[in-house]
């Protein structure tokens, strides 16, 4: 219909012309003059173009034609003012980019389902012990939970396990996992190549089999499809490769495990050994709470039947998604909210620019309206202009997002990426432009709404009158001022959040670790061979200590079984039950961190001794066992009494009570945010291991010393595995807790900075415009003898009024907004006065600076010029 209209219109106009001629002819026949006849005919007909337009309407499709017209008009408007268009589009694109880029991470972590069959039905199982609620299961737990539960269709276990590979380049430690044979079945994951583990393959008697991760298959086996059925050597023993996992498979609780083996009866006969974590699939129709209840009952039964190993142990039941994503969710939600706020500020900023523009277009609008443009048509015009801006911003923002996604992904440090393998899957997908479009639509609506609402307030005819600007000026100031208050309030929320996050991060990094972390270097060492060979372990420890202490730049050296500030599996697996000799206990006693410590370790890390002595070389296997305990344990077990000389009994060796010879101030043995936890330290010579960390106190920069130390270690024994060389400071700042806190603080900080800039520019705009509007008023005041200071006060009063309104509003909103932050805060409360005060000052000072320039301009108004100009 529509496309044929051009021809039809011509035909219709001809027809109308013919009609008028006929009428004219009749009038002539009636005796009128030529001119009068034509005029009368025309009058009788009315406007031919209106008739044609109305006829056009009958056929429909006209809206598209008008749309095209309005778009052309809108484009012309933008072209006429390129600086405005550029600013608006850039600000919009920036906000859109920030939100969309963050969304890409949210999408990868929280929106994209985990790569398992119906992941929502998968459950993570832990033991809840007095120290915490996410601890290991024993073999007994695994078997009995599986046998007795009525809520799971299957229940399996896994544990992270590093393995040793020997290759041409020497030995290497690689991450792997031990699983029960139904593990992949429970997840609902089928191997890409080969087969899954079979029932019974988790028994010690079964042939040793391994399934490779896709990454490992690509990297170590050159993606050879014939690899299935072949044998490979792991931990010095032959394993048959039975399968390769799909590319998109990941299981964050074991990091990026390359080799998946069965547990082969690990700790089968030792119920005091807690190696596993559980994963289970809910039966259809069973709820999470029903499952939790069932497992609580079972663990109570077990605690009664096996008090020796299971006293005080119940269960934790969580959705698997929560177990995997629980850490990152609050961070991501905070970042996304921050981005949304920034985006909103950007929109509001552009809206106020649009308002200024509307103000200068009032006459044009009024003329259009007077000439008969309907309110609807004007509304549509604003909508089109708003959406045109939003559309350009969307295109630009999406282009930047598309280009920067990979760059952003590579900003995540490798250790953090290993802990969060699902972020690896972050890539461009259809949801990202969809999300961006939703934002753009909101933006477009806002852009259209601001000038529209503003004009609705005005009497249209007023717009036609020249000179009379007072009422419009006031109205504009009202619209513009409320937008600026909103901007300042949002800025305040972002500043408060950023301040709190930064302070948390600072507090986290400066938490009292009990050791001096600067100039401290650590290296991980594994001696291949039998780990229980005490003589060789001790010999190695002696050699390392004496050789490394002599290295230039090294002040002292000492070894530990595990690292201070350890995290992950190496931390959670180091709890042992202890009880005080001579006291009655049910079961094995209370849990404490168990740490093997070499001579010189405490001196090297500079732990503080509060009573007794540190270990010495004489604390060897020929003497009675001794231990140091930390202050938390001393207080918990002995209260005000002295702990020295008391004897404690460990669960694994009840025959040999251990004498406490010293108490150290708490050393943070776990993650930075670990609460005070009891700890027992045993001398290396009395509890040796082939797998330990060397700690070095250096007099030079520790980074330099690390290289020579690693070289020295390889000289001592070329077969040693030497890895994880790091300075303690780096280790802390690369830890997952620090990473999450740091990225939250930085990103929200950057958002807050941008918001501050936009908010202050917005305020500057409003005050400047207001000064321009009030030039005449100011001129009159000055002509009547007002002092400059009075004019100055007049302008600043308005600025202060707006800033204070924004700040107060922002503070109120912050109280609500920071509830979101609660789980990210460390060592600060949500209403930390210092932060709130500092942030208020920053915003107030920036706001006053921004208003100072226009105020200065106001005082320079020349009354004569100002009055003549109107």
């Amino acid at each position, binding site marked *: 219909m529509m496309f044929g209209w051009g021809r039809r219109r011509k*035909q*219709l106009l*001809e*027809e*109308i012309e*013919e*009609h008028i*001629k*006929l*009428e004219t*002819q*009749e009038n002539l026949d009636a005796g009128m003059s030529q001119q009068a006849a034509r005029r009368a005919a025309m009058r*009788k*007909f*009315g*406007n*031919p173009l*209106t*008739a*044609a337009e*109305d*006829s056009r*309407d*009958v*056929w429909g499709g006209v809206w598209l034609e008008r749309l095209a017209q309005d778009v052309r008009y809108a484009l012309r408007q933008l072209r006429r003012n390129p600086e405005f268009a550029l600013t608006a589009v850039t600000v919009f694109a920036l906000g859109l980019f920030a939100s969309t880029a963050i969304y890409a991470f949210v999408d990868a972590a929280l929106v994209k389902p985990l790569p398992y069959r119906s992941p929502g039905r998968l459950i993570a199982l832990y033991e809840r012990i007095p120290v915490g609620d996410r601890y290991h299961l024993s073999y007994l737990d695994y078997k009995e939970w599986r046998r007795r539960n009525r809520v799971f269709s299957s229940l399996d276990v896994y544990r992270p396990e590093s393995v040793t590979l020997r290759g041409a380049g020497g030995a290497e430690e690689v991450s792997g996992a031990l699983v029960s044979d139904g593990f992949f079945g429970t997840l609902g994951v089928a191997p890409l190549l080969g087969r899954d583990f079979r029932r019974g393959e988790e028994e010690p008697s079964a042939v040793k089999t391994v399934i490779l991760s896709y990454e490992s298959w690509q990297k170590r086996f050159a993606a050879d499809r014939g690899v299935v059925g072949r044998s490979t050597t792991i931990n010095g023993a032959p394993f048959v490769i039975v399968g390769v996992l799909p590319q998109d498979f990941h299981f964050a609780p074991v990091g990026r495990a390359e080799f998946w083996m069965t547990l082969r009866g690990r700790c089968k006969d030792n119920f005091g050994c807690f190696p596993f974590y559980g994963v289970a699939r809910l039966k259809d129709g069973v709820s999470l709470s029903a499952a939790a209840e069932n497992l609580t009952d079972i663990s109570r039964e077990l605690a009664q039947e096996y008090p020796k190993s299971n006293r005080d142990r119940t269960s934790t039941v969580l959705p698997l998604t929560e177990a995997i994503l629980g850490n990152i969710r609050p961070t991501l939600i905070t970042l996304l909210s921050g981005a949304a706020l920034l985006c909103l500020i950007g929109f509001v900023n552009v809206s106020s620019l649009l308002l200024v523009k509307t103000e200068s277009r009032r006459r044009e609008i009024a003329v259009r309206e007077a000439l008969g443009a309907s309110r609807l048509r004007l509304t549509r015009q604003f909508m089109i202009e708003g959406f045109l801006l939003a559309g350009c911003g969307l295109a630009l923002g999406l282009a930047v997002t598309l280009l920067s996604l990979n760059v952003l992904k590579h900003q995540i440090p490798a250790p953090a990426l290993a802990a969060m393998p699902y972020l690896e899957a972050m890539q461009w997908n259809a949801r990202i432009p969809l999300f961006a479009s939703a934002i753009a639509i909101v933006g477009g609506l806002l852009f259209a709404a601001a000038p529209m609402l503003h004009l609705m307030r005005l009497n249209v005819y007023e717009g036609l009158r020249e000179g009379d600007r007072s009422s419009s000026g006031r109205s504009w100031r009202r619209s513009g001022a409320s937008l600026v208050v909103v901007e300042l309030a949002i800025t305040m929320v972002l500043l408060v959040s950023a301040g709190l996050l930064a302070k948390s991060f600072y507090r986290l990094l400066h938490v009292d670790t009990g050791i001096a972390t600067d100039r401290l270097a650590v290296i991980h060492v594994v001696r291949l061979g039998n780990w229980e060979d005490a003589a060789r372990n001790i010999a190695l420890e002696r050699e390392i200590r004496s050789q490394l202490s002599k290295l230039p730049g090294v002040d002292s050296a000492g070894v530990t079984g595990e690292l201070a500030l350890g995290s992950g599996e190496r931390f959670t697996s180091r709890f042992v039950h202890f009880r005080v000799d001579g006291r009655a206990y049910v079961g094995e006693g209370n849990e404490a961190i168990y740490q093997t410590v070499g001579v010189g370790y405490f001196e090297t890390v500079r732990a503080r001794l509060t009573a007794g002595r540190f270990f010495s070389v004489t604390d060897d296997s020929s003497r009675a066992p001794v231990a140091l305990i930390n202050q938390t344990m001393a207080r918990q077990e002995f209260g005000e009494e002295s702990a020295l000389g008391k004897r404690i009994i460990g669960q694994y060796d009840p025959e040999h009570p251990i004498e406490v010879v010293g108490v150290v101030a708490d050393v943070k043995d776990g993650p930075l945010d670990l609460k005070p936890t009891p700890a027992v330290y045993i001398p290396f010579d009395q509890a040796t291991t082939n797998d330990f960390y060397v700690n070095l106190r250096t007099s030079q920069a520790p980074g330099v010393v690390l290289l020579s130390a690693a070289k020295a270690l390889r000289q001592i024994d070329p077969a040693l595995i030497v890895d994880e060389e790091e300075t303690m400071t780096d280790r802390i700042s690369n830890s997952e807790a620090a990473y999450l806190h740091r990225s939250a603080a930085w990103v929200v900080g950057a958002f807050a900075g941008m918001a501050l800039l936009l908010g202050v520019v917005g305020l500057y705009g409003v005050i400047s415009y207001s000064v321009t509007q009030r030039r005449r008023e100011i001129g009159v005041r000055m002509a009547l003898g007002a002092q400059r200071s009075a004019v100055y006060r007049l302008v600043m009063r308005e600025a202060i009024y707006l800033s204070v309104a924004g700040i107060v509003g922002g503070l109120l909103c912050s109280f609500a907004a920071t509830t979101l932050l609660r789980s990210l805060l460390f060592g600060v409360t949500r209403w930390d006065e210092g932060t709130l005060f500092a942030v208020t000052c920053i915003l107030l000072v920036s706001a006053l600076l921004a208003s100072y320039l226009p105020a200065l301009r106001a005082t320079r108004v020349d009354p004569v010029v100002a009055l003549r100009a109107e």
Partner: protein
Amino acid sequence: MSTKERKEQLELMQGTLDLLILQTLAPGHAHGHAIARMIERRSDEVLQVGHGSLYPALQRLLKSGLIAAEDGTSENNRKARFYRLTARGRKQLHAETSKWQRFSNAMARILAPVAEEKS
């Protein structure tokens, strides 16, 4: 046209124009100007058709298929566009006419006493 004259003329009620066009076309085809003239003449110049508003109405009827249009030549040998009723248009005309008559009879009965009292 004097103000007195204008008072005696009636503006067309919304929607009645379509019916008038159909009625005008009942005897045979006609072009736009002829239709306007005929309506005026047959109502003794009481009904005044805004000639401009005729064309949108014609388009409306064309679209709903009640009339058809074809090119031809007018009485004084000029190119013109002629409109005629379609079968559907004729049916519609009958239906609408009887509806109108019932309506105007009813109106006349209701208004009659008032008119008598006044006169």
